[in-house]
């Protein structure tokens, strides 16, 4: 069943319903061979449902999904040996060691020559090979999950929220592993609600909200095509700055550093804002003007923020 196809993943009018709830609503997209494709969206957007249909865990209500040219509903047995999956909230057998877990999954794929030592080295788990799964930290467990997803040397790797719940250091370690996969030329389908992750790793980002893809392009192109405005950042300790901007008809908001961001569409607006601040006696500690980043594009497109606190849950979408 090995055939050369242009697209590793082809999704056509995919819909998935759970009773009256439409989790994925008539979406279509393709993932090229060797690219890292990121599905970006908040919890409940439909990311996991889409990836679980693509990696054969669940069946679609309607539409077609082809993996390496094969239909996921009819040719699962031919697809499974050629893909690697890190499901959301990955877990393994508590009392089985890291090496034994790798050996077990390699036997499931009948891989006699699986390079278990090489994979453990790739995910930096060589020194934990004899440690039982239950004794690993969250980050180490995720890294083991990625190593398992690679045990059959798959052509496509599905990583469903691989860094959710990890601390920043562990997250960066997982990113390094993913960058290694990218260098190896693997096709990676990644779901995340971390903008930074998508921006850093993905060749293509699809923004999904309420079961619909609302934008899809490279991170740079997404910003370019949606950057018809500038973001003015004001550093101020004076609460009056917010009031002044509101009275002028702008919609200011606080960014992650507690500075005031305001979207301006004309350069003339900047002069007006600064004059108004001066007239109102608002003291400014500093200011910055730049094109929007991916987070701001996401905010513009979806009207909702990807909040950090929403990332703690592992709710299936």
């Amino acid at each position, binding site marked *: 069943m090995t055939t050369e196809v242009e697209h590793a993943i082809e999704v056509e009018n995919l819909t998935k319903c759970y009773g009256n709830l439409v989790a994925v609503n008539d979406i279509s997209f393709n993932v090229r061979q060797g690219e890292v494709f990121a599905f970006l969206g908040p919890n409940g957007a439909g990311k996991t449902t889409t990836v679980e249909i693509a990696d054969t865990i*669940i069946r679609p209500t309607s539409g077609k999904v082809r993996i390496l040219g094969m239909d996921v509903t009819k040719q699962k047995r031919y697809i499974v*040996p050629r893909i690697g*999956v890190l499901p959301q909230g*990955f*877990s393994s057998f508590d*009392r*089985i060691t890291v090496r034994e877990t790798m050996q077990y999954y390699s036997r*499931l794929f*009948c891989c006699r020559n699986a390079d278990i030592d090489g994979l453990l080295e790739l995910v930096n788990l060589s020194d934990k090979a004899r440690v039982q799964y239950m004794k690993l930290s969250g980050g180490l467990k995720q890294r083991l999950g990625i190593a398992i997803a690679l045990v059959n040397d798959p052509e496509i790797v599905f990583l469903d929220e691989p860094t959710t719940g990890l601390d920043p250091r562990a997250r960066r370690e997982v990113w390094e592993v993913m960058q290694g996969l990218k260098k190896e030329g693997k096709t990676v389908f990644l779901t995340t609600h971390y903008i930074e992750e998508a921006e850093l790793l993905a060749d293509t980002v699809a923004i999904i909200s309420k079961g619909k893809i609302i934008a899809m392009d490279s991170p740079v192109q997404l910003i370019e095509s949606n950057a018809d405005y500038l973001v003015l950042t004001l550093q101020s300790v004076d609460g009056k700055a917010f009031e002044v901007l509101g009275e002028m008809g702008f919609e200011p908001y606080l960014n992650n550093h507690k500075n005031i961001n305001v979207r301006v569409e004309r350069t003339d607006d900047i002069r007006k804002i600064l004059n108004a601040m001066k007239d109102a006696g608002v003291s400014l500690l500093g200011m910055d003007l730049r094109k929007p980043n991916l987070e701001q594009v996401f905010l513009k497109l979806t009207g909702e923020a990807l909040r950090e606190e929403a990332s703690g849950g592992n709710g299936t979408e």
Partner: protein
Amino acid sequence: MNLRIVAASLVVSIKIFFREKTTMFFTTTFPILLIFVFGTIFVDQDKVSFDLCLQDLDRTETSAEIAKALALTGKFRIIEVPPAIDATQYAKNNKANLVLVIPKDYEKSYTQYLQFDNPNAVVTIKYIYDPSSSSVDTKMQILDMVFAKMNQGLSGKPPFISRAEISIHTRKYRFIDFFIPGIIAMAVMTASLFGTVNVNTELRQKGIIRKLSTTPITRTDWILSNILYQFVLAVISTTAMLLVSYAVFDVKLQINGWLPLFIVLDVFTFVGIGMILTRIVKEAQGAAAAANAIIFPMMFLSGSFVPLEMMPRYLQTFAKVLPLYYVNEGLRASMVFRDNLSALSYAAIIGTIAAIVFIVGITATRWEESK
């Protein structure tokens, strides 16, 4: 079906079993504890004796003979109740379910009956008893037999009807010999059903089943590895139970090829039922409750502990729809009665049930999770 995948899954399950010390302890010791408890109760069932409270109001040598005669039966340990005490009050205060009262003038009446051949010289021995007690009927039946024998002896004639006991079995068996096969069948059922339900609901809740669904393992491979794993546990626990039974209770059981066959069929049936339950009940707690709902009727109504003849007729009929009944009867046919033909017919029935349940179990098992 891929035997390498089945073997790999079996090895993982066995490693987990040996590393979970508490699970290992309870899997092997629980059936042994059951054998100790019930074995101790039933091993000397033929030598059972009851406490019997006796109030002798006559206080003569002749009346004392009654106490001696009763003690000689070996069925009673006599507790004397002083004549000055009210027997009914004594029974209430001391929670005695039966007080036997020999009346005053017993010796006088006895003499008149024997020496003067006076047919009106009769005595009435009172049974003051608690009808709510379960053992009082047995006590009174034994007393009736003892007194009937005494009356017959007094009449001076030999008994007209006597009895000759001919056992249908060539060897003499004790209750413990019949009990052990029932305990083996029950222990294998409990371990298979609970093991399957607990492990599979836990793996599903942790998302491991979801991960396995993205590998080449099939539902048949998975269920077969579960069955093999439960069979290994069943062999360990059955060996332990038989060793204790032989060493402590000196049972006389026939070990032959039927034993592993019935264990395999027992495991197949109850792992299959466990798989069906896992499909129907989502949460671990609910699954355990559902497993209990199946296990308890099987335990008590299929003849594992209590002989079916002691149950009402409709329950005896009901027992015959319970799979465990055929495992119990099959094991007894082979291990106790050495009746290969009966063992074969029971094996055929439980084999058919096992095959149906196994197929339904495979069909019911879903890798895909509904939400």
